[in-house]
């Protein structure tokens, strides 16, 4: 029943492609990268065993180009395709096409992706399986009038979401009925651009909720387990920026309840491979189903550090038909992990993307510090794709230790040439709100929208003068060093 996977095409780029390739290599599995013309020098190309150029910069012609990707997989003799996150990761057609061409798609079946990818259908179906859902439209409303009526019955504010959504794209919060029409149009437009599907739906907007999600693993033999929850409430513009595992507010009873609900729903729809059930949690700790991400998540490392499981390894094993190596009882969380996403973006200006060249890049290291990076010093971040550069993840014996480690890791980081959220993240993690575990999905947008960095001016001025006076590099040890001679011949034998 188990198939052998010898070589995998990674249909993605950046940090996630690099991360997947690392595990493949450790498993002795060959890797094929695909890249667009602007990514010839990208980190994921350098990490791969082989690489195929699949088109020009524009994603529609390269990373979203199913035909070119499948052709590359076949030409290089791959047995499987790992889609990463974003791009084609939640595209049921792509999963189907892969299987049709004899390629194992490392993810759930096309049917499951299709069902759960339509957020409207998923809400409907999973509420039937007992998952609590937020009041909202279920797809029957067709005219603006009907939608307006629905919003009025659920009460403002509401949120417009893309049915094919993910990553905060195609999402608009609407405070007043008068703004609904524009929000619907704008969300639909962004959704169409991002996912090729402009269908949207409306939910009641929960005020200051927490975003808590449950990681699951499901094999092809009907076994489903959960790997406890992650909290991802620190968001800007509906996009996660800091994640942690476990959640600072979930106790054992709630963990088991949420986990069991996710496992039950996953079994009901025949879910296979890794997936995430996302929930919003209100102030009274009621949880409401949000959506299922039918793929690896950006924030999967925090779960890996706390459970000891390599999720990519498990994804590959499951795809090959192997039964889960671990039972639910063996998932014993230990310690605490925090992840910060490092984007090319400017937190002092609404987190605007900031493409450009990484003039200096110093990444942190040391005990309990993991960096999943997709860039290097000198790399020019292309404008065409999601501007994620890397992720810093820290582990500690408890939440405080992990947070302190993260603060130190961020302070060790140097990113110049482009703006980065590092200074913002340091202040966020040092804040009392974060320390107390009180960050909600509204915190950054509402309380920190005017954030400006506190600059270390005095020290910078002193460093400026110091560099002027003493910054001349000492002449480097001129010339190459001699090859060391054999030790056993230190005593120079002459014949």
């Amino acid at each position, binding site marked *: 029943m188990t198939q052998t996977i010898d070589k995998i095409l990674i249909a993605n780029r950046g940090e996630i492609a690099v991360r997947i390739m690392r595990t493949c290599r450790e498993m002795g599995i060959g890797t094929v990268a695909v890249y667009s013309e602007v990514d010839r020098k990208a980190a994921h190309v350098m990490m791969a065993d082989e690489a195929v150029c699949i088109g020009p910069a524009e*994603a529609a012609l390269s990373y979203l180009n199913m035909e070119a990707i499948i052709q590359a997989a076949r030409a290089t003799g791959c047995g499987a395709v790992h889609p990463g996150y974003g791009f084609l990761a939640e595209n049921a057609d792509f999963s189907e096409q892969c299987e049709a061409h004899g390629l194992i798609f490392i993810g759930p079946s096309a049917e499951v992706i299709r069902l759960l990818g339509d957020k409207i259908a998923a809400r409907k179906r999973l509420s039937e399986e007992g998952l609590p859902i937020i009041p909202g439209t279920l797809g029957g409303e067709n005219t603006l009038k009907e939608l307006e009526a629905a919003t009025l019955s659920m009460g403002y504010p509401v949120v417009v979401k893309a049915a094919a959504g993910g990553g905060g*794209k195609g999402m608009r919060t609407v405070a007043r009925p008068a703004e609904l029409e*524009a929000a619907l*149009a*704008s969300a639909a*437009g*962004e959704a169409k*651009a*991002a996912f090729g599907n402009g269908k949207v739906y409306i939910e009641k907007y929960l005020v200051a909720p927490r975003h808590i999600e449950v990681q699951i693993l499901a094999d092809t033999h009907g076994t489903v387990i959960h790997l406890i929850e992650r909290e991802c409430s620190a968001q800007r513009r509906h996009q996660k920026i800091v994640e942690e595992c476990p959640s600072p507010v979930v106790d054992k009873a709630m963990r088991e309840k949420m986990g069991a609900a996710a496992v039950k729903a996953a079994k009901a729809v025949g879910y296979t491979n890794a997936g995430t059930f996302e929930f919003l949690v209100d102030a009274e700790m009621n949880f409401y189903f949000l959506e299922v991400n039918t793929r690896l998540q950006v924030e999967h490392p925090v779960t890996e550090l706390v459970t000891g499981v390599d999720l990519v390894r498990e994804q590959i094993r499951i795809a090959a038909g192997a039964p889960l190596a671990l039972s639910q009882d063996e998932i014993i969380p230990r310690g605490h992990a925090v992840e910060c996403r490092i984007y090319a973006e400017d937190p002092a200006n*609404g987190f*605007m*993307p*900031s*493409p450009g060249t990484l*003039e*200096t890049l*110093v990444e942190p290291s040391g005990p309990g510090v993991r960096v999943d990076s997709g860039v290097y010093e000198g790399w020019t971040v292309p*404008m*065409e*794709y*999601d*501007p994620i550069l890397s992720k810093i993840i820290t582990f500690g014996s408890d939440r405080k230790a992990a947070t302190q480690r993260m603060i130190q890791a*961020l*302070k*060790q*980081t*140097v*990113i*110049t040439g482009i703006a980065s959220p*590092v*200074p913002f993240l*340091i202040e966020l993690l040092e804040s009392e709100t974060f320390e107390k575990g009180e960050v909600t999905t509204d915190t950054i947008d509402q309380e920190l929208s005017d954030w400006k*960095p*506190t*600059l*270390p*001016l*005095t*020290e*910078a*001025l*002193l*460093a*400026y*003068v*110091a*560099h*002027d*006076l*003493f*910054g*001349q*590099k*000492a002449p480097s040890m001129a010339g190459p060093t001699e090859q060391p001679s054999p030790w056993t011949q230190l005593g120079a034998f002459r014949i």
Partner: protein
Amino acid sequence: MDYRCKTGMIETTLSCTTRKKGFSTEIDGTPFIVSAMPVGEKQMHLFINGRSRLACVEVIEGGKRITIDGVPVEVLDADRLPDTSSAKDDMPGDVTPPMPSVVLAILVSLGDQVDKGTPLVTVSAMKMETTLTAPFDARISSINTAPGDQVMPGEILVNLEPITPEEEKTGTGG
């Protein structure tokens, strides 16, 4: 030795006396004794009043960029800067977009009176859509773009006329 440095809007003059492997100076009345060593290619290690500090120093146009504890600061040589701020108009609105974008929608019409925060234009850059809002109460005096336009750094999309003229000279950013 005197250094006249500019960090953002702030200009600071440091009178420095060099010492063995270091210097002493004063900033805002606080005395500093600094010793310094270059380390690797871009780093300086300092003792500032006995406190150990690592700074990443890059030479940039007109000065240096210094990163300490993860936070970069540009320190410019005020003596090498143009006399007045001729390079940029200091008006809050008169700035240059940092990257090429595509205009998706114009949400206002010529002559509209808008409150601070009213959405004006929706643009898309780096796969992300963002709505530009009015930085103050204003009247739309001209619209220079249309949906589908590729807009480049330097282009002005919408001209605004403030409604409360007393605000004219204040504000250093929205």
